[in-house]
């Protein structure tokens, strides 16, 4: 499975915690929905224990959904192919020894 099954359970518990519900309201103005994590935990266990293809596909769908949610906006900038050329170029000023 994409994550260790215990990770799904810990995400579920974390999601339902008071702190997280507070932070979610503070950020989004709504309550978080945590059921999916519990569902994913169930499917993860099914996949591991019984090699259930249904469970496997359900879990994969859920995770792909999560990835899609993170990437559904159009970025304002273009991603680079290579890191900036001057990232490690030596500093050209005579800096005092404080850095």
């Amino acid at each position: 499975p994409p994550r260790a099954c215990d990770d799904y359970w810990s995400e579920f518990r974390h999601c339902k915690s008071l702190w997280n519900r507070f932070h979610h309201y503070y950020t989004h103005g709504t309550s978080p929905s945590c059921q999916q994590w519990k569902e994913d935990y169930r499917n993860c266990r099914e996949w591991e224990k019984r090699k259930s293809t249904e469970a496997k596909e359900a879990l994969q769908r859920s995770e792909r959904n999560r990835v899609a949610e993170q990437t559904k906006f159009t970025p304002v900038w273009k991603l680079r192919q290579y890191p900036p050329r001057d990232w490690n170029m030596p500093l050209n000023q005579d800096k005092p020894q404080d850095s």
Partner: protein
Amino acid sequence: MDHTKQEGEYGYELFPHRNMGKNKQGSIAEGQFTFNHKCQIMLQFAMETSPYAKLLLSAMKNSGCKLFKDRHFSCEDCDGTVSGGFDASSSQIVLCQNNIRQQSHMNRVVTHELVHAFDHCRADVDWFNNLRHLACSEIRAANLSGDCSFSTEAARFNFGLKQHHQDCVRGRAIRSILAVRKIGQEEAEKIVNEVFNTCFNDHAPFGRIPHSKKDANFAYRDYENRDRYYSNL
């Protein structure tokens, strides 16, 4: 917080010790040494223990921009209340040794500037000419660094609840832009509003908005496991 290139036009005046290559002498020197020393220690601690910073450092290394403390970080004196900045022209994160007094503040500033550095590394950000790019990175930095967490805002006496986080992010992004560009409040607001939705929802490399250290630890765990994750989708 800002991406400085020229005196006056890009906010360089906030960082008077950049590009001056001088050695501070005299009785002030001892005070500077203590500030500087403390800054270095807090920076080291942040890099080693803050899950926010560790995740960003790891992500940057994997994007080809490994950070070296001596090359990419600089503790300096700054003007006013500025806490830090990212200088794209020298690929350095500036930390204001005279304005950062607590470890928690250092952790936040380091995270904030690392978000800028991360954006610089993975995208073609035109810091100097494209205000939408600048706004986007400021929105992300305010959003992901804990700058706008409930406790941080409460400490500023900004008590808000429902969706206050977003108001805070918007406000801080606008302020950051105004601090380094000579544009009006209205124009800054317009630009931030234009890119807000996209940039507020860009959580790279965290994969979520880390509201707390626990969130950040979860995000770090996910990041470390990303190979397994993507190969099993």
